[in-house]
């Protein structure tokens, strides 16, 4: 018989699976000490099906070409002053939120997958985690290039590392990932690959990338395409991990269900930042938050959970509350940022009349009744030169770290508070979902670094607002003002020749800070 050509599958198995070995002078439990700590029962690692069959050597080749293309486009974008082609400079604030809030998470993911890969005993899972770890590093690097470009022309992008680690609202995404990384390897992958990258990904990625495309930001669009080609691999990893755990042992089902409940809720809370971006921050809107949630979670997620029901997995706990909250989430979040703009590293504004009409049409149940009157009041104050600001420090949810401004799912006029007692102290959470998470692992969450508590404890540069903002390295009076008063806005008018009072410069001038 003549030698048969290896099929793609066999080729992969020779180049990956066959590279592993049985340890002979150390027991497996010592090499992989975290395998059992989460309570999962794994009976047969050979049942792990590699969700994609890519060998490392092919991986390098692919990623190298992606990089080459991406940087060529980013370079051309910079050369051609691509930043001037965005719809208007309000758009940049969506980028500021993404680049300060999400880009450092890519780095966290890089670390998290490296750790998970180290701790999972199966070689298929190890290789998948290794590739994803390198992917995430690539993503953060390309985003840092975007930061570097926009930072030359706009405020609020000059110190993303420091801000991510310290500023109050950025503790929301940061603590989300810290929570995942300090769990075991399986919970980490369930949190990130399954709940976040699979179940919720379309709600993070789609709004930012389509938002960028709609608003003329080709640098971000190109990055998006480049990352999406990795994303499919990541999602598939999430699905495989879930199936693997559920098929290994029936005792794993309740553990996985709890993780799904927890990470769905945490992800939903994190996405409140996206909701306000979609409804308020994009000058040209893609779709409303409510439409996105209905399409990507209720419909697509519903189909997924119908399939998961075969394993005995049900819809994530409290998902009904997310549906009840669709009419309010983005408005309440934007309200909080608008009224605390003095402590934020991006600009806020009140919607123009045509945007109000769009909001009213997308939110017929809630907008005109609850939010338009408030916005009109704020606008009137703006016109009188008395912009509304809320100088107090809000109480934060012990779990998600978001200020407690959300209302009860069934009553948009009552703030939702939950209280737990642990070792004689009271802890506050924003919702049933966050309370359940706290109550299950109180010892973990009482250690949370809550920005407001830290200020009161004197750990953030001092007791006055100015001192705290200095400690945040927030360029006061520049980064933290309403859009109509901002340098971004006056520069934009100059560059685009929109301001009849000033001459339009030929060359966009770079901003002073940064």
């Amino acid at each position: 018989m003549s030698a048969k050509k290896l099929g793609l599958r066999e080729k992969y198995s020779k180049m990956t699976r066959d590279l592993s070995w049985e340890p002979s002078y150390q027991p497996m439990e010592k090499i992989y000490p975290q395998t059992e700590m989460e309570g999962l029962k794994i009976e047969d690692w050979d049942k792990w099906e590699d969700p994609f069959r890519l060998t490392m050597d092919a991986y390098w080749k692919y990623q190298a070409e992606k990089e080459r293309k991406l940087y060529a486009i980013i370079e051309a974008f910079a050369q051609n002053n691509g930043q001037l082609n965005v719809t208007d400079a309000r758009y940049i604030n969506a980028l500021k939120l993404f680049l300060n809030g999400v880009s450092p998470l890519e780095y966290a993911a890089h670390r998290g997958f490296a750790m998970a890969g180290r701790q999972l005993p199966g070689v298929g899972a190890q290789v998948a985690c290794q590739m994803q770890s390198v992917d995430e590093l690539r993503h953060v690097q390309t985003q840092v290039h975007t930061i570097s470009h926009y930072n030359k022309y706009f405020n609020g992008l000059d110190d993303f590392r420091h801000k991510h680690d310290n500023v109050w609202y950025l503790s929301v995404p940061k603590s989300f990932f810290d929570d995942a990384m300090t769990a075991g390897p399986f919970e980490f992958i369930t949190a990130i690959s399954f709940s976040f990258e699979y179940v919720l990904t379309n709600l993070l990625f789609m709004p930012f990338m389509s938002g960028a495309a709609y608003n003329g930001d080709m640098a971000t669009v190109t990055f998006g395409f480049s990352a999406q080609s990795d994303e499919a691999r990541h999602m598939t990893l999430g699905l495989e991990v879930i199936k693997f755990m559920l098929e290994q042992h029936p005792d794993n089902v309740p553990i996985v269900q709890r993780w799904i409940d927890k990470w769905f809720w945490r992800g939903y809370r994190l996405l409140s930042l996206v909701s306000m971006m979609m409804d308020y921050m994009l000058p040209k809107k893609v779709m409303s938050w409510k439409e996105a949630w209905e399409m990507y979670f209720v419909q697509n997620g519903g189909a997924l959970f119908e399939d998961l029901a075969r394993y005995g997995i049900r819809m994530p706990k409290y998902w009904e509350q997310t549906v009840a909250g669709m009419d309010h989430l983005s408005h309440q979040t934007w309200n909080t940022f608008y009224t605390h703009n003095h402590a934020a590293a991006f600009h806020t504004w009140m919607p123009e009349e045509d945007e109000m009409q769009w909001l009213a049409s997308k939110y017929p149940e809630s907008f005109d009744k609850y939010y338009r009157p408030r916005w009109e009041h704020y606008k009137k104050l703006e016109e009188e030169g008395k912009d509304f600001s809320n100088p107090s420090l809000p109480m934060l949810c012990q779990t998600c770290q978001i200020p407690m401004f959300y209302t009860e799912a069934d009553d948009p006029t009552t703030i939702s508070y939950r209280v737990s007692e642990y070792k004689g102290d009271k802890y506050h959470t924003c919702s049933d979902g966050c309370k359940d998470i706290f109550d299950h692992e109180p010892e973990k969450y009482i250690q949370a670094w809550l920005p407001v508590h830290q200020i009161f404890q004197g750990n953030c540069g001092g007791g006055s607002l100015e001192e705290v903002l200095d400690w945040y390295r927030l360029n006061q009076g520049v980064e933290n003002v309403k859009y109509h008063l901002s340098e971004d806005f006056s520069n934009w008018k100059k560059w685009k020749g929109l301001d009849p009072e000033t001459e339009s410069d030929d060359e966009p001038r770079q901003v002073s800070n940064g």
Partner: protein
Amino acid sequence: MSYEVTIEPLGETIEVEDDQTILDAALRAGIWLPHACCHGLCATCKVDVVDGEVEQGDASPFALMDFERDEGKCLACCATPTSDLVIEADIEEDADAEVHPVEDYAGVVVAIEALTPTAKSVIVELDRELKFQAGQYVNLHLPEIGQTRAFSLANSPSEKRRVELQIRHIPGGEATSFVHQQLKVGDKVDITGPYGRFFVRRSADADALFLACGTGISSPKSMILDLLEQGDDRNIKLFHGARNQTELYDRDLFEQLAADFKNFRYTPVLSQPNGDQTWEGAVGYVQDVAQSHLENDFRGHQAYLCGSPNMIDSAITVLMQGRLFERDIYFEKFISAADAAQQSQRSPLFKSI
């Protein structure tokens, strides 16, 4: 205009219209190829073009690199053929699959027997031998009404000239009404086949569990006859469902086999005996009866399900509760036009179920 596309390592050939994507044509032909986004972004559907030319369509430059285009790769979800093709996809070559080319046969109906008030056995004698793997089906073409429909081969593969089809009457269905009301011995029919990837995975060291309902017994009958003829000594368990005793057929045959072969166990099950005093056997749905007989533990089996889409969906759920998963579940869904019209949205969690 259409092209022939051969998919390796399966060796199956499908027709692809010149404006149809390879993925679309493959899925429609019942061949699963890996895919996710379906619009050129994720690269999950990447295949090697071994021979022939394609138009790349909207493949993203990040999902399909220049060097890959040069190496002759394409994204099956975007690529359309511009010539006949041979592609190689990242799918499992099934060691247990026999390759029998699809051909057209001329046949004559030599016997029709009423199995039950709603099912007929139709024996067709062919112009030459049809080689197939037990479990496969054929397309039956009825020249008088100009219609073609799929039916599984109920005979053992050792019987190559005379094939048996067991055809249930679908009320209002054009082809099955014709078969039940007008088809007679001596009529000419055409048969094309064999098709399908429903067959016993013999290389697996596992018991074979068959769940069949109504005329869904056709394929399992062929598969079981074949296993026993070949002297296969694995445990074979057949749960055979019907509504009531009048709808239950081939019971004598299976009971005789159970008496002759000690590795074969036969359990007929009625779903609606409606106070039938003469029935002493199991009552319920096949999957539920199997679940209680096997004490909700299906591990160590390979399951073969055959029948209506509803029965198969419920059976998969029951099997998974008893810890048998996708990799060990095989099925043939007897889809009719009505089922095809109401397929619901699926998630990518499972590949085939």
